[in-house]
């Protein structure tokens, strides 16, 4: 059976799962491309995923890339070269938002497989249930089951209680500015377009939404929202970001420093160069204390109140995957309770599956694996979550940040936004 026929059969629901596992064993290998910047995750891949998949007859080939876009480039270049399903080199990619959007726009996805996996029952697919949101939409873009959520995440900030009391940590953006006015230079955020930086910016935009409607309008696509409306919505947030720039790390000596990535941020936090570190990582404090990258006094705190962005990470299968069946087996494995629990234990990355779809035992297993919260409670977190921004807006917001904040463009704000929108659309 050729690859195209297999895909046809599987997506139409005609092929039973046994044919998939059988074909996967024949294919033998699965090439998983993922951001290799996290040692715990890499170790988990090698120590847990590889042997587990081997039991299923599939050899995991983990390709650790420094930027997800490398894999997207590869898929698109191969697709452009006429390599179809079965002939490319990427079987699965860890994607979020923008990159998924690119694959979708270029019609480079395998198809709606996620809801047809045996473990798809671990996800809430009911559109009417608001809790299904992160399974159905990735950065606001409909997933159409072309990717499977394999990890959850939440943006959380940590305070170094060795330097600042937990109670003194700001909970709103206004408090943050007040704090910085008293302690100039003791904060910074990761430089957009890194996703950690983008998320901080998004949270600020939600908080300064002139309509007071928080994240809601940011769920719409760029098309439906329009550039002018977007400009109106985000201007106050950007004004705020601009206003704190002179208070950020290094600004006093004329060199404002935005760390390049999470590791850099952690380094600054450990050395007391900054008092707060904001990044994805529900259990980041526990994990980072356990590996020595956070100072001993690190604790999570609620910031920004009501706008702590929560999202999921996904595995996508490209349309020219060389081993489509093996990719499906991998996706199904990643959706299992065992895999999610061990990942949580190794890496502190929250589960991608939805606990309420599980049996009590299974749910128990998951929560037992979690490293635990330090400084915050589950209830506090639940009360302050916000969804991600629509992927089509993220690119614009990124570009606006680069233009307005980094380059310090003097153009009127709506011109900046319009320019960003037009650059992206051609």
């Amino acid at each position, binding site marked *: 059976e050729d690859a195209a026929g297999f895909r046809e059969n599987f997506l139409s629901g005609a092929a039973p799962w046994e044919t998939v596992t059988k074909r996967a064993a024949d294919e033998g290998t699965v090439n998983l491309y993922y951001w290799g910047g996290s040692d715990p995750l890499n170790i988990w891949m090698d120590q847990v995923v590889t042997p587990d998949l081997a039991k299923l007859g599939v050899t995991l080939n983990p390709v650790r890339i420094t930027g997800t876009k490398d894999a997207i480039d590869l898929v698109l*270049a191969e697709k452009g070269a006429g390599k179809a399903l079965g002939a490319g080199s990427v079987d699965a990619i860890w994607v979020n938002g*923008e990159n998924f959007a690119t694959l979708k726009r270029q019609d480079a996805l395998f198809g709606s497989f996620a809801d047809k996996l045996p473990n798809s029952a671990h996800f809430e697919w009911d559109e009417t249930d608001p809790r299904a949101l992160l399974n159905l939409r990735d950065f606001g873009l409909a997933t159409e089951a072309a990717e499977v959520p394999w990890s959850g995440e939440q943006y959380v900030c940590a305070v170094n209680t060795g330097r600042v009391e937990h109670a003194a940590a700001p909970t709103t953006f206004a408090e943050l500015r007040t704090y910085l006015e008293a302690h100039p230079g*003791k904060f910074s955020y990761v430089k957009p*377009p890194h996703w950690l930086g983008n998320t901080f910016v998004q949270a600020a935009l939600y908080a300064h939404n002139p309509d007071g409607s928080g994240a809601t309008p940011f769920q719409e696509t760029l098309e439906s929202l329009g550039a002018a409306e977007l400009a109106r919505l985000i201007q106050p947030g950007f004004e705020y970001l601009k206003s704190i720039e002179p208070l950020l790390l*290094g600004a006093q000596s004329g*060199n404002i420093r935005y760390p390049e990535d999470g590791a850099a941020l952690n380094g600054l936090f450990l*050395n*007391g160069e900054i008092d707060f570190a904001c990044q994805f990582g529900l259990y980041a404090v526990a994990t980072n204390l356990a590996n020595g990258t956070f100072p001993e006094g690190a604790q999570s705190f609620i910031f920004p109140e009501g706008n702590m962005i929560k999202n999921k990470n996904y595995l996508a299968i490209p349309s020219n995957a060389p081993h489509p069946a093996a990719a499906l087996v991998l996706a199904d494995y990643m959706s299992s309770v065992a895999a999610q629990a061990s990942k949580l234990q190794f890496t502190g990355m929250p589960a991608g599956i939805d606990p309420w779809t599980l049996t009590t035992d299974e749910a128990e297993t998951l929560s037992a694996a979690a490293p635990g919260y330090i400084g915050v409670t589950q209830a506090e977190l639940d009360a302050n979550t916000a969804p991600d921004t629509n992927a089509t807006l993220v*690119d614009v917001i990124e570009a606006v940040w680069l233009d307005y904040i980094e380059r310090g463009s003097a153009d009127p704000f709506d011109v900046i936004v319009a320019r960003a929108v037009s650059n992206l659309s051609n």
Partner: protein
Amino acid sequence: MPPKRQIWLLMQLLPVMLVLTVLFGGALLLGVAQALGFAPWFGVNTFPDTSHFAALWSDPVFWRSLGFTLYYAFVATGLAVVFGVLLALALRESFAGKTLFKYIYKLPLMIPYAVGIALAVLLLGNGGMASRMMAFVGVIDDPSQFPQILKTHAGWGIIAVYVWKQLPFVALTVYAVLLGLGRETEEAAKVLGAHRWQVFWHVTLPQILPAIVSSSLIITAFNIGAFEAPFILGGGFPDTLPVVAWRYFNDADYTLQLRGMAVVVTLAIVSGVVLFAYLGTYRRFERKRGRS
């Protein structure tokens, strides 16, 4: 030359010619073509399209980036040359522990830049060893009070890494030439009544000048094109051109790929122009000196 001999000569040159023409020449052509809008692999083919260059060159930030790129390259080269030559001169003397020293000074030459960068991070960062020493002796009590060396546009961190890595190269090259020269001409100058600096200026320096020029040419070229050090240790926006190119290539916006290509091609042109100007000046100087 008999034709048989010509063919034999050609056959021996062919492998090198082939590799460099196809790979290197091909890469250059391809780079220019892409910067001019030829990129069918992402569905772009607007060749010939000068808009990418136009957009780049009309942006004042680009020129600042270029300025930083050249600034780091030149300052680092200058320092490496000055200290490298001094080291080479010192190496001619005999001193206790010279054998060991000759191993030590060459170490940076042998290891990747990234190691040098790692060392700079740990030593020179605001949270680094130097800063801690200052805190230890009580000069500062917060990392932010440490004079910023890394992550600034003054670029002392980048320059330090370049110099650390390239000083040995210059020293080794010049020292090797000095070894070949021997001391006789310098002794002759001394006997003729020349004083220390006259000996250096009129006799030693002119003879090591070719080595200085060729080694500084190589390191300047490297510094202009280097990526890791300015990426990790640089002051951020505006970045050096290789970093700018890198950012463009990693942007989700595919049109920026071609802009990145324009950056890279511009970089090659600048590097070529700068180095040819340097070489040309040197040649003219040599010729002038030869004539007068």
